[in-house]
């Protein structure tokens, strides 16, 4: 598009037919030519700031991962020692397992719920849709730290709002100690995350559904497809880009989960009973900023980065497969 403009007189037949004077900008004959320095000036804040605050830390994160450090200043070269330590560290695998389970639960529960609500909202009238969307999105205005501590009170045995609700609905759960029972900690984190992110993903799905060609769905329906078939064969392929996008951001976000469990399980500094709530980034924060071993923290950061990078690659693959 942009190159077309500067070459318009030769590249575009219609423009060639017009008198040369009609596009003086391209030649710079009567107007001022595009300043060559302008884009460099406009991008210089980004280039300068990211050189200092992205490239330098990025390089030193590589270097740092090969050192054992104690605080910001003292450090000793240990080669691959940090990575070797992580591979033998049961806490690391505990965190990795918890985070992966959380990521899977997020995908399996969060996305279908978001999609279901989006489908319900998609057929509502405009004003009603805006109203419901506003409410369902609202938890995202509250910071994760606030959400975490708020829910830690809602999960209190016998008195917490969630325990009371479960008792009223299912006659179960009044006395459950969600946050100190190792087998209920992850479900508690998942429930809390559902409250926050179902509405967030729903906004994306809803926006995509609004763009689906309704006549295609109508045609399928006339051909005798039932509601599920229409959704699976017509609607879902129509919004596949957004589904992949939401899927990937959800997984990546899950692997970066930190503030929510930290606040929810604040009495154990985010670890939970028997480390059942320990997440990768919680562990990184503990190693790097509480114990002061920035080197081991950087090594763990690289492991998380590699996981996320792998997921990004899988995204590209997945999109390509779906294009064919």
């Amino acid at each position, binding site marked *: 598009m942009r190159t077309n403009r500067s070459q318009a007189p030769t590249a575009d037949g219609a423009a060639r037919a017009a008198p040369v004077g009609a596009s003086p900008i391209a030649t710079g004959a009567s107007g001022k030519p595009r300043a060559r320095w302008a884009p460099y000036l406009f991008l210089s804040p980004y280039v300068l700031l990211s050189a200092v605050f992205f490239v330098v830390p990025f390089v030193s994160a590589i270097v740092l991962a090969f050192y054992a450090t104690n605080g910001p200043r003292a450090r000793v070269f240990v080669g691959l020692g940090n990575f070797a330590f992580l591979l033998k560290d049961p806490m690391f695998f505990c965190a990795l397992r918890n985070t992966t389970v959380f990521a899977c639960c997020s995908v399996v529960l969060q996305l279908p719920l978001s999609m279901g609500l989006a489908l319900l909202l998609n057929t*509502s009238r405009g004003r009603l849709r805006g109203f419901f969307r506003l409410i369902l999105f609202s938890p995202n205005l509250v*910071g994760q730290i606030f959400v975490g501590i708020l829910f830690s009170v809602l999960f209190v045995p016998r008195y917490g709002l969630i325990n009371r609700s479960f008792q009223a609905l299912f006659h179960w759960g009044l006395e459950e100690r969600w946050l100190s029972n190792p087998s209920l900690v992850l479900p508690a984190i998942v429930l809390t995350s559902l409250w926050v992110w179902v509405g967030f993903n729903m906004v994306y799905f809803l926006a995509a559904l609004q763009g689906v060609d309704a006549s295609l769905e109508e045609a399928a329906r006339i051909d005798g497809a039932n509601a599920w078939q229409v959704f699976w064969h017509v609607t879902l392929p129509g919004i596949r880009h957004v589904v992949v996008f939401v899927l990937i951001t959800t997984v990546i976000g899950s692997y970066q989960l930190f503030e929510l469990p930290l606040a929810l399980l604040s009495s154990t500094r985010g670890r939970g009973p028997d480390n059942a709530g320990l997440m990768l980034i919680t562990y990184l924060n503990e190693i790097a*900023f509480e114990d002061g071993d920035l080197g081991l923290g950087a090594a763990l950061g690289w492991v998380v980065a590699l996981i996320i990078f792998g997921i990004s690659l899988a995204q590209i693959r997945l999109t390509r497969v779906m294009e064919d």
Partner: protein
Amino acid sequence: MNALYVVLLALVVPPLLLARRPKLALGYARLCVLALACAIVLAPFVWLVAAIFKDKSVLNQYAFFPPLRDWSSKTLNLENFVMLFEGGKRGAQGTISFGRVSFWQYVLNSTVFATVGTMAQLLFCSLGGYALAKYDFTGKAALMTFMLGSMTIPSVLLLAPLYRMIVGFGLVDTLTGLILPGMVSAYGIFLFRQACLSVPDEMIDAGRIDGCSEFTIYFRLVMPLVRPMAAAFCLMSFLWHWNAFFAPNVFLHSEANLTLPVVLNMYINDYSQEYGVFLAGTAIAVIPPAVLFLVLQKEFISGLTAGAVKG
């Protein structure tokens, strides 16, 4: 318990009556599910509003508000707000001693951090996005590849080395040191690039013929056209800054410099669990984002989804 069954009956009976008109019944069922979802989402907010007025001793005694006959200054009072504004004297045994810094200092810190950070991001990202959308220049492809690559690196990885750097610059424990690294974002530049692509070239050229400087064209012609994206980006950026915890928690140390999420988090520690005070602070902290969201709602939704829906 009985009330629950009444509600259930009220939900189930109308569709049965509407059995002969399946379309209406379906619409009714849909409305019920949506209303239920909204009730679940809103319940914690209603609970929060009730909790901040409840006395510490009855915080969990009642599900929401106490029944009318129990209303008194012993169950409902403003004690939480008094403690919040006085600085939480009862929580003084923690590692941080409260009481010397006013609550409004933290509100001010958070406001400065969020507004300066947002304004800087808005300026730099829109400038960068405009340059990428409307100029051809050497190194453009390389720069865009670099930006895309940088977006795959999780920020936590850079936090440790960044912290060392900020210590080296002598900017640790200052808002400047916290704002500086976050003033640009590759994601924001891409958002603005996409918005600027739809600005007609003819308009920019016309501005140039009229003798506008390059900066005037950006500021007077392009910015007004991409205002919806700018509004959406402002809200996203503001939310991110206002609610940020990880980086401020690492970078800021002294009591007078902390931001709201960090300081409120300190009300809940090993020595004191002042949930009422924390929740009162939370209720105040939610107001600015909520107001911004209500004002910018329309632009926000379209801006948020623009990157994804276009693919």
